[in-house]
């Protein structure tokens, strides 16, 4: 029941087009709308009632919204101003900043989170510095071992164990901090990847003690409790842990680079073409930095530790075997960070299985009728040395994984905001 007649000045009297007035009042809504229904919903939320609709000579808010949708100037450049594309690679930094300033910038995937600046700096520094921690811890442990050279073996063993635990813990922490893509708030952390962790432990263990064990096995041993495991050259653990830093950095950089390219590409093919060089660059960077680090670790640690008495400059196969292990781990890291955890797991498991099979084949061959089993291993070791076993196992697995990564990682689906479950 209306006690008042409709105000006379609302539609009929004024010369101005009421639809144009509405259009001006709701210009942002109308320009950005992707659907007349969106305008209808927005108009209603903005207080447009049936009375207003009637004054615009429309039957309902939907037909009014359709007219507004048809009359509003479309923002064709919406996609452009969302990410002002600087086609040259030099514009990356600028693009990131403008992206954050845009209304939709909260969703800009290149930014990890929107927090206060000091907190972001701190988290960035932590993410960069964390991968260095295992190497430093390992170096510290080795230094303590040098200092405690004359200490009782029990103490040295304790130091060794504590150091190994610390190194492993920090390594896990730095790897799990890797996915640089923003996560939904309150998301449950992924379950701890037990199997890959065990594989990595096995591979590292083999890199440290595998050669010794294989030599013992081939020589008819090992005799328990006679032979304590020979300490590996300290450059090996140091090199392994130090190489974690470039691995994590390279993987991070690649993820960021791909994310940035994601925003600017029009088609999947273009995206793949632009990501492939980045992937190659990341691989190359790791492949260059890893031997350099290994060489550095060997000259530093072996020289200091051996005190000039046993200069075991890494021979070709041993050096290459460590590099192969590292390459395998890096490939698995890349694949796992982009959601291909099963592939990474399969690669690691294959390498572990190959090494274990080689080790097992030697004692098994002592059984009657099974001598033939150890022949290939013996021949390989005789010609190429013990280090050729991990080299072959890890190298093959690494090559397969890298080939797989070179196919899958340039695809857009590898760069979802959250890595795929399992």
């Amino acid at each position, binding site marked *: 029941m209306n006690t008042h007649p409709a105000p006379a000045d609302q539609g009929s009297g004024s010369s101005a087009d009421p639809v144009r007035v509405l259009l001006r009042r709701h210009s942002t809504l109308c320009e950005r709308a992707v659907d007349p229904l969106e305008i209808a919903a*927005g108009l209603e939320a903005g*207080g447009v009632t049936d*009375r207003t609709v009637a004054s615009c000579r429309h039957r309902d808010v939907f037909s009014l919204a359709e007219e507004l949708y048809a009359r509003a100037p479309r923002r064709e450049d919406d996609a452009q101003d969302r990410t002002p594309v600087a086609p040259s690679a030099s514009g990356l930094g600028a693009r990131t900043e403008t992206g954050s300033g845009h*209304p939709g910038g909260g969703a800009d995937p290149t930014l990890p989170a929107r927090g206060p600046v000091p907190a972001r700096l701190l988290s960035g520094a932590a993410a960069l510095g964390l991968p260095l921690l295992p190497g430093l811890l390992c170096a510290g442990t080795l230094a303590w071992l040098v200092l405690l050279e004359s200490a009782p073996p029990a103490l040295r063993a304790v130091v060794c164990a504590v150091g190994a635990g610390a190194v492993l813990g920090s390594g896990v922490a730095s790897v799990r901090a890797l996915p640089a893509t923003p996560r939904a708030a309150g998301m449950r952390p992924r379950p701890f990847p037990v199997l890959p962790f065990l594989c990595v432990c096995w591979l590292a263990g083999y890199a440290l003690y595998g050669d010794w064990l294989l030599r013992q096995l081939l020589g008819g041993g090992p005799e328990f409790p006679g032979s304590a495991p020979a300490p590996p050259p300290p450059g090996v653990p140091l090199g392994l842990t130090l190489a974690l830093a470039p691995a994590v950095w390279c993987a991070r950089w690649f993820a960021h680079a791909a994310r940035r390219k994601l925003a600017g590409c029009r088609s999947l093919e273009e995206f793949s073409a632009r990501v492939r060089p980045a992937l190659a660059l990341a691989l190359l960077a790791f492949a260059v930095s890893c031997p350099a680090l290994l060489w550095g670790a060997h000259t530093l640690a072996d020289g200091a530790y051996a005190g000039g008495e046993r200069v075991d400059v890494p021979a070709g196969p041993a050096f290459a075997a460590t590099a192969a292990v590292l390459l395998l781990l890096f490939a698995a890291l890349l694949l796992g960070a982009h*959601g291909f955890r099963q592939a990474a797991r399969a690669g690691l498991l294959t390498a572990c299985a190959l090494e274990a099979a080689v080790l097992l084949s030697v004692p098994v061959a002592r059984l009657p009728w099974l001598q033939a089993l150890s022949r290939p291993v013996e021949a390989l070791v005789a010609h190429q040395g013990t280090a050729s076993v991990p080299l072959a196992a890890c190298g093959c697995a690494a090559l397969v994984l890298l080939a*797989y990564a070179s196919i899958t990682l340039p695809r857009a689906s590898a760069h*979802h905001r959250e890595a795929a479950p*399992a």
Partner: protein
Amino acid sequence: MRIALLTEGGYPYLRGESALWCDRLLRGLDGHEFAVHALSRSARQERAGWCELPANVTRVRTAPLWGPGEPAGETVRGLGHGLHGRRERRRFRECFSLLAEAVCTAQYGVRADALRGAGAAVGAVVTSQADRFAAGLYGLAELAAERDGLSAALRSEQAVRILQGACRAPGALRAAHAARVEDLLAVAERLERALRPLSLDWYGLRGGEAGLSASDLCHAVGAGPAALPGLLAHRAAGVPLLITEYGVRLRAHYLASAAGATGAVARGVAGAPVRALLGSFQRLLTQEAYARAHVITPGNAHDRTWQERCGADRARLRTVYPGMDPAPFDAVGERSADLPPRDGCRADGAPTLVWAGRIGPAKDVSTLLHAFARVRETLPAARLRIVETGGSDGRSRPAAAGGDGDDAYLPLCRALAARLFPADAGGACPVAFDAVGSRTVPTLADAYAAGDVVVLSSAVEGFPVSLVEAMFCGRATVSTEVGAVREVIGGTGLVVPPRDPRALAEACAALLGDRTRATRLGAAARARALELFTVRQNVETFRALYLEVLARHPAGARAADRAQAPDEDDVATPAHPFARPAESHLPGRWAGATRRGAGTAPAGPEGGRSAGTTGRAGRRTTTRVPAGGATHTPSWAGQDRPADGLSARNRPADGLPARNAPPWRAAPERAAVGAEPEEATTP
């Protein structure tokens, strides 16, 4: 009977939409068993915990529509792909292509009457779009029922490539043409989340418990993602679907989308292509839900307009007003009805206006203050009390009402009041700000009791809760014509245009000056509210709706037929209202007893009819055996195909809606909705 309540971001969660309504419904219908199937919307919601569940909730199943989802587990073999085998992949490609094409196509908005007027061409286009969407959706559902890994497949490169192809195809949305790789990925992710209900094990299709397929009725709260499980259960087992919407879900989606576009909400990817495609997907999903639902209950005429716009068949819409508890207001309401009107009904004799609600820009209190200044010119003794209600009363507010400026708005109002009405010599100000729970206003009912006339000045409003409360209290009201105000008030109060202080002032002054009229209006308002807006009315309407839907569309009756010819469109066959006896819907523990007691009696007349179709009956019975141990369908139960011929062929998109709508629709319709004209009480 066993009812599956489907919610999305809703009931069992404390911070759910319409949680209060669901709770009252479940407690009110304690004769039925409810299985709550809830899709949660965020981690925050899950952390807030559940409501206290009534005893008739037999089980609660939840699934997240956020985050990375459940890990696919060890069942998914292979390297990064979800579906294996060339056949599965081809099926996935075909189904997802259909879905993507439908989503990317530019046709928007289906309106039955528009299609009737326009030639057959437009109708055919839109229908084929809806059909393609449905074909793709159900194809994916079948695939997900057979194999794991749909989720991974939706995130795969193949899916992104299909999306890209659909976006670049001629006839695609203009915004979709501009989609970049980033947008495609975002859309793929969101689609994967939205389609997660397809992969759930709620339908009893892969062994295990029967879940939704064993229920007699699916009651979906909202037509969007919440209705998706209901659609699938309907598809798989013929379970009838009832959709209730207090606030159209699609409208809420568009509002959120618009807010994302203008930067009001920095959530999700707000690029135009993403918004366009997701909006299109939600619209198609909503259309499909409306088309398949057997009954749709909008909360008011406004929701109804939206639903009709999105293709809901008018014949299947029943407005069911939200119910509120009148008990707190009874004392005040009874007192107010005491005629004859007294001269000075207030202790101090001053005619008083009351405004109650949560203060925010949408409530437009400033207009009220300006209007009150004009009222004071006519009635210098008039007073205004602005009572702020806490937001903690569990009401579901319309999405538009809450805003960022809420906190800043109250001081503005106070400042405006102080400027317009400087305190007089005695220090008394004609405008008083109170809050419910304070010393002067202990309860909400006291707030209304303190006034002669209750005024609502909102510029935007959904369902005006405070208006209904005032009606319960028997107060005459002056309100602005927004949202559902007109149909709620229905002639028992004055309605003025929004944002018009002069009109508001004149109406207020008219009622304040004429107490007899105000009292009569108030009494009429209370009578109207008690009839239409009580919890009891709401619950009883749903009780009747359940029985009616069930009588018309027995669950599971068509499962066997569907399995034979899944693409065959159902024909509108006449309904046999009592084809299934009522006791077949009783929970298992009661049904057994009932059948033992009186089971053989009705078998006589029906037995002969089922004899000819024993094969079908046997098959149907076996499909329902794994449901809950006990067979709920006696083999003598009617054989005839139910009347959900309404569901597919009869869609408005086909251009012949409602022509063969059964006559039984008419009566309840008039009772529920047509109430306003007859109820209108002229003072």
